[in-house]
């Protein structure tokens, strides 16, 4: 057993493997399947100020080596979350990252303030959800919008603040730098890529919302590149993600510059995948004589 501990800024993680927002609910369901306390952390489903029903129509579609989803931030709202989920989450022995989305600045700030009264470990500011018209991606496209929301968010919370970037950003490096300047403690990337699928018999898009978010193995090469570009141009730690299916993928993300990694779509392929990934990273460190993950972060 190697030493998998890692510090993400001031936050200690027992290992770098975090389950990604929207793919792991609030942990309850997977807790019935395995001991989720072994995880480095959990990023919750995106929380908004108000309760939301999410998108209508088809919500999931498979592509060549990925999936497209159009869930659209269905969630219990921050009040419901605090009441029904926080008590459960606070009892877990793993880092809790609350993912927050919103339609406008005041919604974001409302949710952030509320959540900041709890004992969670980190906030993940989701400025990158492509699935709701006002779901936050608007804030993740142009640097000035991202800068504004991060600046405001920084003012209302003392919790460690990670900003989740969109691969659809005009200039992801520029946005990353702006987040750093405005006081973000870290960055997580990438959220889903905006994609389209068409039913040629019906002559209509598969999704009511027309575009939907692509995740899974097919986005990995692009996600890995973005992590590396951001790593080279910023000085705050990164949570890398996008198509991580196994330990090799996870290590690629670490070598590209991630301090922690997040696992999303892979949970659907194998609900216990995070266990395999933690073990696989451990084995690799052992085999290669790596004493601490810090030795290989961004090494390429």
């Amino acid at each position, binding site marked *: 057993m190697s030493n998998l501990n890692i510090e993400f800024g001031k936050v200690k993680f027992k290992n770098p493997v975090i389950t990604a927002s*929207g*793919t*792991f*609910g609030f942990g*309850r*369901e*997977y807790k*019935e*399947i395995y001991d989720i306390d072994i995880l480095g952390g959990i990023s919750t*489903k995106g929380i908004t100020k108000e309760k939301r*029903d*999410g998108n209508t129509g*088809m*919500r*999931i*579609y*498979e592509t*060549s*080596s*990925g*999936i497209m*989803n159009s*869930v659209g931030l*269905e969630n219990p709202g921050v009040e419901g979350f605090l009441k029904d989920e926080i008590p459960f989450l606070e009892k877990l022995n793993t880092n809790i990252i609350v993912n927050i989305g919103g339609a406008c600045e005041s919604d974001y700030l409302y949710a952030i303030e509320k959540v900041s009264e709890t004992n969670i470990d980190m906030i993940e500011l989701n400025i990158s959800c492509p699935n709701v018209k006002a779901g936050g991606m608007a804030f993740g496209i142009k640097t000035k919008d991202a800068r504004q929301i991060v600046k405001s968010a920084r003012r209302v919370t003392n919790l460690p603040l990670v900003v989740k970037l969109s691969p659809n950003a005009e200039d992801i490096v520029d946005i990353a730098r702006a987040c750093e300047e405005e006081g973000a403690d870290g960055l997580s990337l990438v959220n889903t890529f905006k994609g389209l699928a068409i039913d040629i018999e019906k002559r209509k898009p598969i999704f009511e919302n027309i575009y939907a978010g692509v995740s*899974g*193995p097919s986005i990995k090469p692009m996600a890995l590149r973005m992590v590396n570009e951001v790593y080279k141009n910023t000085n705050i730690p990164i949570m890398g993600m996008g198509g991580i299916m196994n330990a090799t993928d996870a290590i690629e993300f670490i070598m590209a510059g991630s301090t922690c990694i997040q696992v999303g*779509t892979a*949970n*659907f*392929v*194998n*609900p216990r995948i995070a266990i395999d990934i933690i073990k696989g990273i451990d084995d690799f460190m052992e085999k290669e004589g790596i004493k601490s993950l810090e030795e290989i972060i961004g090494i390429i």
Partner: protein
Amino acid sequence: MAKILENIKVSDKIYKLVIEGKFHGEMGQFFMIRGWDDYPLLSRPLSIHDKNNESITFLYRVEGFGTNKLTQLRKGDNIKLEGPYGNGYPTVKGRIAIVGGGIGIAPLLYTAKNLKNTVKELDIYLGFTEKEYLTDEFGKYGNNLYVSVGDFITGKLEVDKYDYVFTCGPEIMMRKIVEMAKGKNVKTYVSIEKHMACGVGACLVCSCKTKNGMSRVCKDGPVYLGEDVFYE
């Protein structure tokens, strides 16, 4: 990982898949099945068709990529399955009708087998579009068996005769039954089909609007009170 004992065609595009092992699971629950390594990425939900101490059986219709891949599996091949997931049909007493349409009959065999001993009366209605299959199997468990091929099985059903109707099949058929039961003293339970990703209630891609708000078909369903889902 489990071993396949049998994977045989029982009718046009309909296969029976028997997997070795003692599995838990209630009537109406399902498993996420994966008869391949990498692609398709997502596993496929299949209901418990039958089950005993040595094996579990699924009945599936060939639809697309995933179910096509399933047909290629042979005795002795490995297969992955996760579950049981979902709520399943409730254990009830009284007079009950089980109504299946097409591949919707899949979860109903095990359901009939389970209910047979607890209920007062059990009638089984099976509707097929082209050709009937497995009706003999069902015959073992019902007091009466009604089969229709080509026309609507709901034509044979008098809902007032029952305390409960359990149904699974095309939405149009289930809606019809719920409508027939409206205002009468009959409870209908329907099994909802939604595309799934996690299967465990974590991803919300299978959410369905119900009278009581959004509900996860994989976790809170797939079985619902008819009036709760088909209320509009």
